[in-house]
């Protein structure tokens, strides 16, 4: 829902890094986006294309890897995917903060990130 503002931060960060290193051209940007974010990847790609026009990033490839949601339990030590409740009323399985192993409340350990992992540029 706020893909444009997040993507414009991505482009600004890459441009700042490229300038710092005296790059002439940016050719690839690798992004990791957590599945618990509300970032629509199609919209991110669309905003990216619009934002890089006329910059040294124009023509660069945006590669996006998705990160699954991971929870950690402080009680039994479980670390892994969410426990889902599946009730026909919900239409889709509902993610919950209950530990799949012991039922305690878990903390979210991964899945909320939006990280620039690496950038390829020509210096």
């Amino acid at each position, binding site marked *: *829902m*706020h893909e444009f*503002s*997040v993507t414009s*931060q*991505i482009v600004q*960060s*890459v441009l700042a*890094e490229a300038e710092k*290193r005296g790059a002439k051209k940016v050719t690839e940007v690798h992004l990791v986006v957590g599945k*618990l*974010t*509300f970032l629509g990847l199609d919209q991110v790609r669309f905003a990216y294309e619009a934002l890089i026009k006329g910059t040294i990033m124009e023509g660069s490839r945006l590669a996006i890897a998705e990160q699954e949601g991971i929870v950690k339990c402080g009680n039994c030590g479980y670390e892994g995917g969410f426990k889902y*409740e599946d009730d026909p*009323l*919900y239409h889709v399985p*509902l*993610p*919950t*903060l*209950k530990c799949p192993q012991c039922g305690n*409340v878990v903390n*979210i350990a991964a899945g*909320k*990130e*939006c*990280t*620039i*992992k*690496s*950038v*390829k*540029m020509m210096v």
Partner: protein
Amino acid sequence: MELSEDLLKANQRLAEENKLFLHQNGVCTVDVMGSIGSGKTSLIEKLVRLLKSRYKIAVFKGDLTTTIDAELIAKHGVQTVAINTGKECHLDANLVRKALLKLDFKKTNLLFIENVGNLICPAEFPLGSDKRVVVVSVTEGPYMVVKHPFIFMEADIVAINKVDLAEAMGVGVKHLEKDVKTINPKAMVVPTNCRTGEGVEHVAKALGL
């Protein structure tokens, strides 16, 4: 070239700074989220009325445009800062930081931040508050909670509002409560009618105020 810059973490870092700054100034902060028209402003108004003799209250009121709600709250004689986001669908830690510069901390020890009406984006942008409240009203229908699990995972307290209309709407308050508890067993659920003030003292209690 390896780079590891998390763009959402940048907001989280700022939020942590806000929290530290608020604590250093002796301010407890509550962030109120919920749909458009769920009753966020009404809840804050009623909380202000209930608590203003015991706390020095300030309110940040987030909206895309206009200061209508901010003026409603300012009528209660508390410091109010309108944060107009322009086009953004949520408040972020940076907007809150800017608003903090306008606060008189000698006159503040309790801050309510009303987020932009939205059950999606605010979940992603912590602001630096101590507690997060989500307001959901029965007039939004029976599936509002299960359709937006992630914001309810963020909530410390959920106010189920407009309970006086539950029967007319055919929406079960208990059912909404069960949905919240399924997603987030640690969230406290309080049924309210923020027009009359019913249940608002329980919200205050749940906030430890």
